[in-house]
């Protein structure tokens, strides 16, 4: 190749259209913030975001219909991105979750309206000191932070890239692109801003810390294999590199580089997934962040991160399966057990759900550990089921409010079932799905991952998982007891009647929960078809 001549990269625009649409829309969103008048921003942002996400979803569906989830799967972007079954399936979930989250973000009937019109659950002026003069003025003026929408879109864009990432560079970039907007979103709560900011700081510092580890791991893998591309590394791990260079020959023998590097990259991803012992940010951040953000984050981040983790384990590191499998066994067991056990004594709904998400990370991990096609598709299905339940649950949390905003302390939920039987019933449905009771999506998902694990001979994991489920059931049930069997308190919270936006979120989540529980076959087929990584 002539050094002066740059080869124009060959970009598969169509195959990458979903993420491109989202990123494009995000940029438009930023432009709207910059140029549109304050009043017009909200409708414009909502419309752009919703349209972009819906459009991207349509693109994903189109790509899948094209067969790119199966036989037509391809490596795109000069080998940097993979458009294959798992990627498209997870992108589909992320986009749907993102779309639904837009509805949650856009909800403006929960908070008392300011002078400028109705407001949402995000800070009037994030930069203002909590309780200060500036904030009071902003509140009075009814200011809102419409920047949340482009931030959401950027995060979604990063998440779309994450499971597609087919080299370590993209992996890192995608991680940061999805993380940075989330750090900011966490800090934007309208009420309890100190908590919100604290959550952001913690999330940010720990997230950065984790990504530093990830990066160092990437570095070592690069050092080991001399390439950043997944396929290239996999080849080297398997002992048959495409080109044998002298430098490679010396590093290839150094297994420590591979092992430590692999472990550190895995650790970075486990942090995003929220697996023990990298889970400690989860409760604090889930609790402090604005609830719509928590819902979005809990659902979508987990999906994206598991996508990336799966690809890493299945495409890059299958050669060293015997090294990481036992270790991840340990992580999975620790997550299931610790998540379930610690959740028993939680008193805050959001923290409770955070611990529950940790336990679920363990369940999903046990499916991932099957290292089989069944394992992949079971994880895909589980993620689909789990993300909607989570989103629905957090959507319900936004509706239970008292004078101080959302009433997240469990004691305030006493007797909710008597005041608002329907809402409480829906929440109970979500809890039952979390607990994995049959006829809910949670059960089908749990069955799928456990079956995959058992099929792969990991019966021990299944048994621990089952026992952890039993422990976990206890605290889900405790909430149900509280809602239905306790007398409502006189000063208890009330359920605000939301706009159709939130209602549609809750409704959709409930519907998905039931459908995936009762008639999951179609979705299982989808997940099965999408179970193969392209290499």
């Amino acid at each position, binding site marked *: 190749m002539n050094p002066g001549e740059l080869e124009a990269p060959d970009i598969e625009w169509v195959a990458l259209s979903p993420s491109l649409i989202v990123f494009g829309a995000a940029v438009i969103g930023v432009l709207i913030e910059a140029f549109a008048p304050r009043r017009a921003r909200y409708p414009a942002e909502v419309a752009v975001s919703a349209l972009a996400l819906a459009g991207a979803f349509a693109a994903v569906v189109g790509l899948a219909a094209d067969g790119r989830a199966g036989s037509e799967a391809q490596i795109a972007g000069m080998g940097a991105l993979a458009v294959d079954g798992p990627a498209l399936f997870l992108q589909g979930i992320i986009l749907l979750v993102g779309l639904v989250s837009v509805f949650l973000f856009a909800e403006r009937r929960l908070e008392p309206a300011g002078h400028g019109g109705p407001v949402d659950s995000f800070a009037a002026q994030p930069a203002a000191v909590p309780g200060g003069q500036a904030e009071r003025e902003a509140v009075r003026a009814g200011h809102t932070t419409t920047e949340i929408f482009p931030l959401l879109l950027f995060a979604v864009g990063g998440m779309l890239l994450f499971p597609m990432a087919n080299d370590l560079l993209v992996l890192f970039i995608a991680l940061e692109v999805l993380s940075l907007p989330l750090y900011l979103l966490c800090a934007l709560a309208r009420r309890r801003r100190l908590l919100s900011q604290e959550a952001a700081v913690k999330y940010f510092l720990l997230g950065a810390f984790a990504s530093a580890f990830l990066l160092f791991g990437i570095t070592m893998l690069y050092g080991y294999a001399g390439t950043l591309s997944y396929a290239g590394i996999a080849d080297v791990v398997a002992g048959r590199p495409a080109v044998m260079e002298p430098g490679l020959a010396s590093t290839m023998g150094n297994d420590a580089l591979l*092992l430590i590097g692999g472990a550190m990259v895995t*650790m970075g991803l486990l942090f995003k997934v929220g697996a023990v012992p*990298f889970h400690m940010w989860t*409760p604090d951040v889930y609790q402090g962040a604005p609830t719509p953000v928590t819902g979005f984050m809990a659902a979508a981040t987990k999906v994206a991160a598991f996508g990336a983790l799966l690809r890493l384990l299945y495409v890059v590191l299958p050669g060293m399966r015997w*090294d990481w499998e036992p270790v991840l066994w340990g992580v999975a067991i620790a997550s299931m057990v610790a998540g379930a056990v610690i*959740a028993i004594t939680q008193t805050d709904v959001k923290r409770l759900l955070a611990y529950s998400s940790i336990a679920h990370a363990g369940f999903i991990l046990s499916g991932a550990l099957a290292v089989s096609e069944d394992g992949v598709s079971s994880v895909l299905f589980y993620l689909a089921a789990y993300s909607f339940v989570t989103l629905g649950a957090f959507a319900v949390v936004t509706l239970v409010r008292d004078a101080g905003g959302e009433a997240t302390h469990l004691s305030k939920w006493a007797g909710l079932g008597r005041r608002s039987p329907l809402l409480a019933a829906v929440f109970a449905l979500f809890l039952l799905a979390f607990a994995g009771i049959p006829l809910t999506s949670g059960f089908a998902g749990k069955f799928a991952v456990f079956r995959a694990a058992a099929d792969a001979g990991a019966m021990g994991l299944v048994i621990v998982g089952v026992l952890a489920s039993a422990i976990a059931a206890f605290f889900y049930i405790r909430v149900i007891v509280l809602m239905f069997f306790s007398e409502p308190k006189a000063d208890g919270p009330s359920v605000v009647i939301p706009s159709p936006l939130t209602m549609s979120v809750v409704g959709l989540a409930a519907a998905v929960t039931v459908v995936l529980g009762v008639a999951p076959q179609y979705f299982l087929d989808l997940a099965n078809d999408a179970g193969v990584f392209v290499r």
Partner: protein
Amino acid sequence: MESLIGLLVGAPLLGAALLLVGGRRLDRVGHWLATALAATSFVLAAVLFSDLLDREGEERVLHEHLFSWVPVADLRADVAFQLDQLSMTFVLLITSVGTLIHLYSIGYMAHDERRRRFFAYLNLFLGAMLLLVLADNYLLLYVGWEGVGLASFLLIGFWQHKPSAATAAKKAFIVNRVGDIGLSIAILLMFTTFGTFAFEPVLDGATGASEATLTGIGLMLLLAACGKSAQVPLQSWLGDAMEGPTPVSALIHAATMVTAGVYLITRSGAIFDAAPDAQTVVVVVGAVTLLFGAIVGCAKDDIKKALAGSTMSQIGYMMLAAGLGPVGYVFAIMHLVTHGFFKAGLFLGAGSVMHAMNDEVDMRRYGGLRRHMPVTFVTFGLAYLAIIGFPYLSGFFSKDEIIYAGFAKGGTEGWILGGVMLLGAALTAYYMTRIMLMTFFGEKRWQPDAHGHEPHPHEAPLTMTIPMIVLAFGSVFAGFLFDSGEAFVHWLEPVTGLEHGDSPVGHGTVGLAATAVMVVGVAGAWFQYGRRPVPAVAPTGRLLTRAARRDLLQDDFNHAAFVTPGNYLTRGLVYLDHKLVDGLVNGTAASFGGLSGRLRRVQNGFARSYAVSMFGGAALLIAATLLMRAV
């Protein structure tokens, strides 16, 4: 003709159902309806009897298969009846005495507002008892067996508002249940041994089974018989059962139900014949009970309880006779029938007395009643003479035959048995005379009842006296009738078999000896109660007397051996269940809670400690990965 058997059993059962379901509407006619149905049964029984008499000895069996009851694989339990000479005898006794006592109860219960129920229960009892004796297999017999137990429970506890009655009823049922275990196990053994529990195949096939098995079956049957017939060691319920209305005591706890044990053993004769060890135990139980009952009967001041002791003792005779095998079966049944008459007569008499004395039962408060209640006195007196074995009255024949059979056992055993029975006969004469004297002779010792009413003894109404008179006739003439030409013996022989024992002591000698000890007994009682006035308050008495008053400490024993430890056991188990079994579960839950509480402390809110956890985790992850490679 066979179909009449179903009707025979069905009539009283129908009566019970009608009276219970019919409710208050039937209050006014219920008792007559019940009596009529009982009488119907009696008439049917008579018809069947004449039919049987028309046949030859071996042909005198009727079978009626109603329907298949519980068919499972090889197990066939049918609702089917078998009427042979043995059951016929019982049927006649039950329906005749039963009808009489129905009639008697009309008068006796006239003022009880729950009379309809009483008659329903009586009918229920009749039906169950008939089922018991007519069943052609042990399982159906068991149904009747428990059915009479239920009726007995309901009737003993008829005055449920009295705690003592309720307790007595419960006690009777439960003690009987202990016996029922025996019957259950016997049936189970029969099934595993013979593959069936119908009389014919089991009894015909008995010789084919091992002696050990048969002994087992026999002992289990004996356990059942002990429960139902109040034999030692399951005798304790009978005395308390006297809490029931007196007609009940007469019918169930004297004439019919308590003799079911004797029926069972006689019916299962083939099994016992092949299991001599079991027979020996039967004999021992009979002998012990015979003395036990007699001793208790001597000490009781409560007229009904004294009679109950007597019942126990007399059934002891029967049991002993049945244990002797074919030598004794016939006489056991014969004594059973005669006993049915005279003991029912005695109880009805006692009822009549109580009726007259404001339900007073303490004989020390009776005295001199013969002038006030002549009919009762005469009928009671005749029955009295029959039971003590006054020559040529019914008891004389049946009891002497049993004593003779006892001697016929031969050897030392024969002498012991004969001696025991003669001693029993003396005691019988003693306690019966004591009752007679305390009740009808001597001074008035009447006292006002709890409400301050002075008793005004009067003769009972006709409905009550007629049955007493009829039974008195039976007491006097039954034995003579049976003994003439050995009619009864020949009648039963095809079923029970018959052997004439070879006794070292002749028939005549036995008769003389029995009469002699009777005279001694009567004289003893007369010396104690006839010559001098009876104290209104019982003297403290000697140790034996005091023990006998307390039923020879049977309740104390049961209490110490079963009730108290049982209570402790239950209480201990309740505690254990709560603390240990449940505690283990709750403890597990709590320990998870504790673990959770401790683990969540790790989440201390400091970002730096979270970072430490991550750092440590990463280190661990790396170390573990490296370790895996090293391994």
